């Protein structure tokens, strides 16, 4: 499977994602933000970091870059797109995903391991997870507090567009175990066609038990199924 990782000035998880993709047998290419075209890709990853310093608003400037026009075109043609952390923020800025990511409820940067529950697994990104499986992933963000309209939230729930929600180690989803104040404990969402996934936690940090665990592996290998 061919993957492309978009690199913006200020991206800082680009290498980590590339390492994960290569380890999991993707044929990966790095794409510089000033490039005017994309290599042939089955998967486009927009990595975490602080693109353009997150100046103005997280993801706002990256959302208007050259290469993003190409990403939008590819996504509309059905290409798989994964935005992690800052990548998720960029996807909401472009409108490929609806809703916004607000400052964390405690107004502080949060870098820690959290539990999330795989709510909906019947999709290309999650089919190797068991339904309701509890994963431990790492988060590291200032703005991960997902917010959207009531109608859109209903749509997300009704159409199974929420793959993961924050939970405790036993899988309970409640405000106490919601690290950033995200609406309904949302840790990630799909677009309508489920080919675009935005995710706040970092699966690429969870692909090696020496470092952490293997809980992020299936997010990538599901795509190879």
């Amino acid at each position, binding site marked *: 499977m061919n993957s492309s990782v978009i690199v913006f000035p200020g991206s800082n998880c680009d290498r*980590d994602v590339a390492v*994960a993709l290569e380890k999991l047998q993707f044929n990966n290419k790095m794409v510089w933000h000033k490039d005017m075209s994309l290599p042939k890709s089955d998967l486009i990853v927009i990595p975490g970091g602080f693109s353009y310093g997150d100046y103005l608003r997280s993801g706002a400037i990256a959302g208007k870059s050259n290469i993003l026009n190409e990403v939008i075109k590819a996504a509309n043609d059905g290409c798989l797109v994964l935005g992690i952390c800052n990548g998720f923020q960029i996807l909401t800025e472009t409108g490929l995903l609806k809703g916004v990511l607000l400052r964390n409820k405690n107004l502080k940067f949060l870098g820690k391991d959290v539990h999330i529950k795989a709510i909906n697994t019947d999709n290309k990104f999650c089919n190797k997870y068991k339904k309701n499986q509890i994963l431990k992933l790492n988060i590291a963000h200032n703005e991960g507090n997902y917010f959207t309209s009531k109608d859109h939230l209903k749509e997300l729930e009704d159409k199974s567009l929420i793959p993961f929600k924050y939970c405790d180690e036993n899988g309970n989803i409640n405000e106490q175990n919601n690290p950033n104040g995200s609406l309904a404990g949302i840790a990630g969402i799909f677009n309508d066609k489920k080919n675009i996934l935005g995710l706040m936690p970092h699966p690429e*940090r969870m692909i090696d038990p020496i470092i952490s665990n293997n809980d992020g592996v299936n997010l990538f290998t599901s795509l190879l199924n």
Partner: protein
Amino acid sequence: MKITNAIVEKHGLKLEEYSKIKKLLNREPNFLELGVFSAMWNEHCSYKSSRIHLKNLHTSGKQVIQGPGENAGVIDIGDDDAIIFKIESHNHPSYIEPYQGAATGVGGILRDVFTMGARPIALLNSIHFGSVDHPKTKSLLNGVVSGIGGYGNCIGIPTVAGETKFNSTYNENILVNTMAVGHAKKDKIFYSKAKGLNKSVVYVGSKTGRDGIHGASMASAEFDENSEDKKPTVQVGDPFTEKLLMEACLELMQDNSIISIQDMGAAGLTSSSIEMASKGDLGMELFLDKVPCREEKMTPYEMMLSESQERMLIILEDGKETKAKKIFEKWDLDFVVIGKTTNTNNLTLKFGNKVVGEMPIDALASKAPLYDREWTKTKLPKKKKINNLKKIKLEDALLKILSSPNQSNKNWVTDQFDQMVMADTIQKSGSDAAIIRIHKKDKAIAITVDSSANYCKAHPYTGGKQIVCENWRNLISVGAKPIAITNCLNFGNPENHQVMGEFVECLLGIKEACEFLDYPVVSGNVSFYNGTNKKNIHPTPVIGGVGLITNINNRIDRNLKEDGNIILQIGKNFGQLSQSIFLQEIYSTTDGPPPEINLSNEKNNGLTVSKLINDKLVLSVHDVSSGGLLIALAEMTFGSLYGVKINKSKNLSNLMEYFFSEDQGRYLVEVEPDNLKKINKILDENNVFSEIIGTVQKNYFEVSGELKIKKNELYRINNTWYNNY
């Protein structure tokens, strides 16, 4: 402008120093030249009070590639890998403007490391605040922690270890020390020494603004009630630009374009250009009209003294300009040739075709003042028999200490840092030392940063030795071979004889411990004048240590592993309580001497524990340090599913002395009962004292006949203070 005594003093120079400048120049300096001299001759840049003592430190060793004197120290970790690291203070700016002060401290130390060709792989910090009741402490803590996080998180280097301490000695002068660690290829290390005539001197990075003018001079003076007015001397950090600068420099370093490179840190363009020329025994000519400026109508004086961040000076090989420029343009950074190397041995400053300043390089650098300041010895305080103390229950003492600000769990701090970015963090904060894997290899480095200001205050010589030992012990405890250290020496006013004595004697202690443990100092920084209105801080040397784990499978942590295993205390417990956390927290007493250091026991115990780890005979290891045995045991349960059951020794004369003494050179190890015989044999062969103190058990933290607490409850108590502050 006529230079008056008042102007001289405003530049932080003594009148006799000004006379020396006139003598070296054979004339009066102009205003610009005076500014340049003041920037080079202040304590921060010239080390004028410390140089004669620093040269006694132990700085060489088989694995040392570069010792002190460069941007950072370099050590050999085998194969073709080198580790480049340094610690630095940003105390004064952080007190005035905590967020920016701390953030630019991180930015500065990162530049020191990537300037030498290393990709930074970890950040550490040692931060000291005043008493928790002091009205400024809370906002300083908030600002500093978010500043450190703000910079490191954005640039994408994990912040993996550190210490946060509170003591009223820092009420008016906090300490913010940050350490950066980078990885480079041994044959791709870059130095600041200029070479060759007529070579292009290139300015890269951010534009120059009016921020941070005279920052280094500010850091070389005591604070007073007007310190707040010094805000404009604090620099403003931009981690985004630094990220671009780092990537651009590392890209340019792939081939042989660079002759030498130096970051513009304290005293900006002045110190970087002079340093490069001085090391290369050359002159340098700068065309100041070419300096990229952020603000209008900047004068040569402002350009030379600005401490705007994220800037570098590079001397390029002939013919490499076009290629180099392309790289910096790719990263949207300025790239301007602003000067050339000369054979005049002068720093020549031109502005609008006119020479506006010309000074001999050696007058600015090697001929800077050097002081052998008077100092007094600190006597070893007498041991006092501690009588008549109000009786306290062991459980109450334990809980009080675990919930105190200094011993509390620091998740509140470390959760504000990205500890995992770069995906090579094997072990993060909340352990004896952090462990970072060398990218795509099976080896790792262990890193830790430590200080013991109370010990150093009580007896600087012992304190100096102790802190090196504790740092070494922390690396041993995670399965690493300690290799070298960097030190950040935070002291008060060196013109005060007692303070100077604290400095000299701490340094002597550091030197002796480093020699004995073969643990050389490869880089460091001195920060004097920490104090306000004649009140000096406790002497606070901070040690950052780096060790090597050749095979990541031989790493070990402190978390208890299995029900029924035996806990062994290695090293002798003499029950010495003076200067302990116990006496401070329970009885507010800080009398008496610090714990004694026996270097020979320290080394023997440590190397024997290393052997046990490498032979895979122990399952968890933790050193016993501040707080003593009981606190160390509690810490072994925090990251574990298990608790402990400790049996009181029969011939125990004093419960508190046994459980809270801070005698040095001790470790706790967890062993399987079947391995005990083998272990005892090794300990006997090496003459290492040990005793069985208890076993691992489920759910409870227990001392037989004294206390029994749910292990999770203990963790909760340890985790409350910050969240309620």
